[in-house]
């Protein structure tokens, strides 16, 4: 066994080694955390120990209604993200298929895209108050414009030769769109949704940090106010976990939907 063979450019390594490496880096990080906290090298105010965090988590579940915060956040993310997708994906498809649609929409979307969604928060509070709808609107603004442009690019990249082929097989424009452009763009659209869902979570936390009375972002903000550092970390970990779950759901759906993509995702 030569160690050298594992350091070849882009060369594959045994999958057991690959998984082992991932576990090792996770374990090393955890070990470092334990040494720093249990060893008393860092004050608990800055970095609580694993036990502190587990205790805090239990306290939040049993007495501070962590689950209602989770439900509130998941509801807002889902609503904002779905609304953006339902409108954004068709518009992106049209823009990628018809120059006339692109000419009409591109300038606006390209401009608004560079306006930070978080900067809209004061305006949105003024317009629609501080309820759920305002949080949903922030998420919508943060994801919609990106989705439109990403789906447009995906649609534009559909091979012209495949479309031409369908024409020579007797397809009308409509049939070419439904039977070639759409299925061809679908994996890319799923990728876009997967990426923008991650962004939706980011905007959710931003939205809940301002003028909120529920949700994970609010909980994090409250913890900071009372110097409950463990609470902040619990909030971050919960969001990370939720992200991991939705991402694996997406991955599973992707593999199920596109068996024809050899090797699936990653």
């Amino acid at each position, binding site marked *: 066994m030569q160690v050298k063979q594992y350091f070849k450019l882009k060369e594959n390594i045994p999958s057991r080694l690959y998984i082992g490496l991932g576990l090792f880096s996770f374990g090393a990080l955890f070990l470092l955390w334990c040494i720093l906290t249990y060893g008393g090298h860092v004050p608990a105010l800055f970095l609580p120990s694993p036990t502190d965090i587990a205790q805090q988590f239990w306290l939040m579940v049993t007495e501070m209604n962590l689950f209602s915060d989770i439900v509130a956040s998941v509801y807002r993310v889902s609503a904002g993200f779905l609304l953006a997708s339902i409108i954004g994906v068709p518009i992106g498809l049209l823009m990628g298929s018809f120059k006339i649609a692109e000419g009409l929409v591109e300038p606006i979307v390209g401009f608004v895209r560079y306006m930070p969604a978080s900067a809209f928060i004061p305006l949105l509070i003024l317009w629609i108050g501080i309820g759920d709808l305002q949080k949903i609107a922030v998420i919508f603004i943060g994801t919609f414009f990106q989705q439109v442009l990403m789906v447009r690019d995906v649609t534009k990249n559909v091979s012209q030769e495949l479309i031409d*082929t369908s024409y020579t097989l007797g397809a009308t424009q409509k049939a070419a769109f439904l039977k070639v452009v759409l299925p061809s763009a679908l994996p890319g659209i799923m990728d876009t949704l997967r990426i923008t869902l991650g962004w939706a979570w980011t905007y959710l936390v931003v939205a809940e940090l301002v003028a909120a009375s529920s949700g994970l972002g609010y909980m994090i903000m409250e913890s900071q106010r009372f110097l409950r550092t463990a609470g902040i970390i619990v909030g971050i970990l919960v969001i990370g976990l939720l992200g991991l779950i939705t991402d694996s759901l997406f991955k599973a759906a992707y593999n199920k939907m596109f068996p024809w993509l050899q090797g699936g995702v990653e």
Partner: protein
Amino acid sequence: MTAIRKEYLKVIDGYSQKAEPKLKVHHVSKTFAQKGQTITALQDTTFDVREGEFVTILGPSGCGKSTILKVIAGLTEPSSGYVMLNDRRIFGPGSDRGMVFQGYTLFPWLTVEQNIGFGLQLKGMAKAERKEIIEHYLHLIGLNGFGRMYPNNLSGGMKQRVAIARALANDPEVLLMDEPFGALDAQTRTVMQELLLNVWEESKKTILFVTHDIDEAIFMGDRVYVMTARPGRLKAEIPVPIPRPREFSVKTSPLFMQLKAEILELIREESWKAASEVGSKGWSPTTA
């Protein structure tokens, strides 16, 4: 010209007088504007293809031979001239002109079966009937048992076989083939040439086949149109009086060699002319 060749040409002449032209390309040209300049992709081109004929167009890359096919397929508008199929002028693409491209154009999200049945489904054909036709063509291209596979699992040669089956299953009036074996390795290419000839003899289709490979053009075609580049135009029509069915072995026969020499001479002449015109810019026959 040798005596044997003359004898064959007589036979071909007799045949051509009987058969009506099925496809007529009438004074078709194609120009396009690029950076304010008008570039001629295809000069005034006229030729026809008869019912059941296998015609090849031979030319270097960039000579506009793909443009001819795209115009016939209705995917590109000609700048002048028109195309007639069965004495009717064609406008736009249609299932009466099937096409096989050089690149792999199977729909990757459909199985082999679904790919072959794509055009039939568009026509609204019933599933049972569709299945029968798909089975027939799977058998014809020698891919029995591969029907449920996705294209990503197939080799390049297999993909092109399915593309041929897909085009034929639609029962087009003419089959247009744009260097369909261009991306395949030499061995697979040879196998595919023989396979296509068998399929052609079985299906009695009219085929217009574009290639840059001299051997392929002669081996496959009843007639070879030789094209020249920049601007692209038809330079000569060479009948191929090699009897059918043709086996791979004819590629080393004296008649084949003679035809090849003739065509090489034609191409060389043209390359020299082009080279002496723009030679100072570094253009050479090999980069054409």
